[in-house]
């Protein structure tokens, strides 16, 4: 039973590119070795933290999306906890939320198609208040 998770973590701002890549590759191999799949990885860049964490005011934000089991999340969190440059992390399950959004989108699209065909002049009128509101 594979689920989609999102793992955001913050590393200290003075970490070198090489060390970052090394950390990320260890995480990715951990995902693959436990039967998961890395979906996306994104460096969100340097951002200011809302409060100081371990005396840091800024941090490099990273976002890893992957598929896997709950045990894998535990393993990744354990790794992040022991790795010294990581100052904060947050893992979240996102597949259910994504499913909900897809469902809403599908309903909306089907409604739009149904309403667009018979009443084309009604659409600008319906959109106009949405813009001003």
């Amino acid at each position, binding site marked *: 039973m594979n689920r989609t998770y999102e793992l*955001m973590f*913050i590393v200290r701002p003075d970490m070198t590119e090489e060390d970052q890549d090394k950390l990320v590759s260890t995480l990715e191999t951990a995902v693959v070795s436990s039967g998961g799949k890395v979906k996306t990885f994104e460096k969100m860049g340097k*951002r200011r*933290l*809302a*409060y100081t*964490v371990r005396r840091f005011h800024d*941090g490099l934000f990273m*976002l890893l999306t992957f598929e896997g089991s709950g045990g894998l999340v535990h393993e990744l969190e354990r790794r992040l906890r022991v790795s010294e440059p990581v100052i*904060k*992390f*947050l893992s*979240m399950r996102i597949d259910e*939320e994504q499913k909900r*959004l897809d469902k*809403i*989108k599908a309903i*909306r699209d089907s409604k739009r198609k149904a309403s667009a065909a018979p009443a084309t002049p009604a659409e600008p009128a319906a959109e106009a208040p*949405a813009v*001003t*509101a």
Partner: protein
Amino acid sequence: MADETRPTSSSSEGHGGGERRPPRPGGGREGGGPGGRKYFRRKKVCKFCTEKIEAINYKDVRLLAQFVAESGKIVPRRLTGVCTPHQRRLSSAIKQARNIALLPFAGRAA
């Protein structure tokens, strides 16, 4: 249009209005119903319902920051007009964002 200004402006006025309303029926009735009111408050509507924003994500700091007061507190529903289902999602997203240091915690001045 007015959505942007509402959370900030109503945080001072709306609160006062909410506090003042209960004693009003006793003394303010003679003023003539709605005419007696000092200012006209229009009905607030949920931003997420009107703009059809379904995804309330902790990463969207710009969106969440509109519903967080200067002190870092979550602005209550009665001031912002957000509907219950959306406020629930909003508050959990704000809490997640706080956890990952995207938003400040309430209380301590940052």
